[in-house]
């Protein structure tokens, strides 16, 4: 097992008295591109939030090395307000603030990196628009580009392709794949067949408890 292996070990969790995850275990090795799949209500988002430590398991433990540089793009991030006072470029650059002290300015290297990400995620035409005015798919791409700004070791994306058409999704998966193995990527998706050619591991969750590993 490498230093940056992450995962859940026999985790049980629920809301109020209802167990939604029971004895779930999986590991993701460093540099892998993994997908968490399953039908609606299979607690995919809950599993990801448990993995991130945003929820505390009732039972079991989480495998997560200390001081891991993590970026997260939650579900429905596309609901950014129309009047959110920030351009797409500013929004992407704001991802670099994570590694800076409050008095440190954004460097030239950060600007160049943001420009490269804008090109990589095909956002050149909207870069000066307000972030709130983008379409759902474009907002998702801008959020993922922002997440890459802090040079994460691990990137977790909850349904990042919502609002994208099939062609856009395939380009998006390809772009993510090109970032591995430098970055470990975990995504939640409904499109199992589409994502299969790109990923190293599928963690399939069944509704209420059972989980099978591939």
């Amino acid at each position, binding site marked *: 097992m490498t230093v940056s292996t992450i995962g859940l070990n026999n985790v049980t969790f629920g809301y109020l008295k209802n167990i939604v995850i029971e004895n779930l275990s999986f590991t993701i090795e460093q540099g892998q591109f993994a997908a968490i799949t399953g039908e609606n209500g299979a607690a995919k988002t809950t599993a990801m*939030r448990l993995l*991130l430590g*945003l929820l505390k398991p009732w039972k079991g433990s989480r495998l997560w090395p200390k001081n891991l540089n*993590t*970026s*997260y*793009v*939650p579900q429905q*991030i596309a609901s*950014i*307000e129309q*009047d*959110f*006072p*920030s*351009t797409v470029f*500013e*929004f992407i650059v*704001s991802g670099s*603030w*994570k590694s*800076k002290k*409050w008095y440190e300015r954004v460097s030239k290297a950060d600007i160049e990196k943001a420009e490269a990400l804008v090109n990589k995620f095909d956002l050149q035409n909207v870069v000066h*628009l*307000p972030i709130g005015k983008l379409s759902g798919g474009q907002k998702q791409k801008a959020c993922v580009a922002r997440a890459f700004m*802090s040079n994460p070791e691990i990137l977790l994306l909850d349904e990042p392709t919502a609002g994208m058409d099939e062609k856009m999704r395939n380009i998006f998966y390809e772009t993510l794949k090109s970032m591995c193995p430098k970055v470990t990527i975990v995504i939640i998706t409904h499109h199992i067949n589409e994502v299969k050619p790109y990923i190293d591991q599928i963690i399939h969750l069944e509704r209420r408890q059972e989980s099978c590993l591939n």
Partner: protein
Amino acid sequence: MQRAFAAGMLIALIAPIIGVFLIMRKQSLIADTLSHIALAGVAIGLVIGSQPEWMSIFIVILGAILIEFLRVRFKSYSDVSIAILMAAGLSIALCLMSISPRGSKTMDQYLFGSIITVTGHQIAVFLAIAIGIFIYFMITKRSLYTMIFNEDVAKVSGISTKFLSFSFSAVIGLFISMMIPMIGMLLVSAIIILPAAIAIQLTTRFRYVFIIASLVSILCTFWGLVSSYKIGTPPGASIALCMVMGILLTLIYKKSKEILFKRIGE
């Protein structure tokens, strides 16, 4: 009058920063709620015989923290908690002031405020607090931006969202309680929110929104105070009226620009 200008400029510099973050967080009504709670603080101070100003600061900070606590506890009903605390603040204030002999005079003073009668000592205290608040926002600006964008993203980035939210609320509470004796409870919210609302209409860039909001606020405060001096209208109301005119002009400007671009496009 010089002291009034000094106090006005201090308010004009800090209030829009708070306003921008409140609008981004969709919490514009909080300023109104806190000013109602401040009045309750003044009333409690009068009844128990302590300094109303300090009691008001203490109660407002407590109220701001309580609002934040309720926001987290009852996520779906956060606006209801604002309404409850607003009603609670005003009713406590009205009841307690009616039994205090100095009640009605103090009530008027806090409802409408008076920037003209501000003392040198008040300005010195206000200046120290304003500098502290400005430094707070310089340090937390980026973290606040990330937290407003998404709390989970902020948590994963290592930002202590709980501390940030509570400290943000406490800072707003402190600033509002300092503003009330000068501007008046009824207009505090307008002075905080309107310049920020104008700036958000005029720019889409985060780095400029604070500069524009502060410039708008300084201009409106200046014109408000000058017109109040010349015509004899209440200073707080004159400043707020200038800001209302500012937002109307901004909306007209934006609409005309849209129509113009549409015509050029055709």
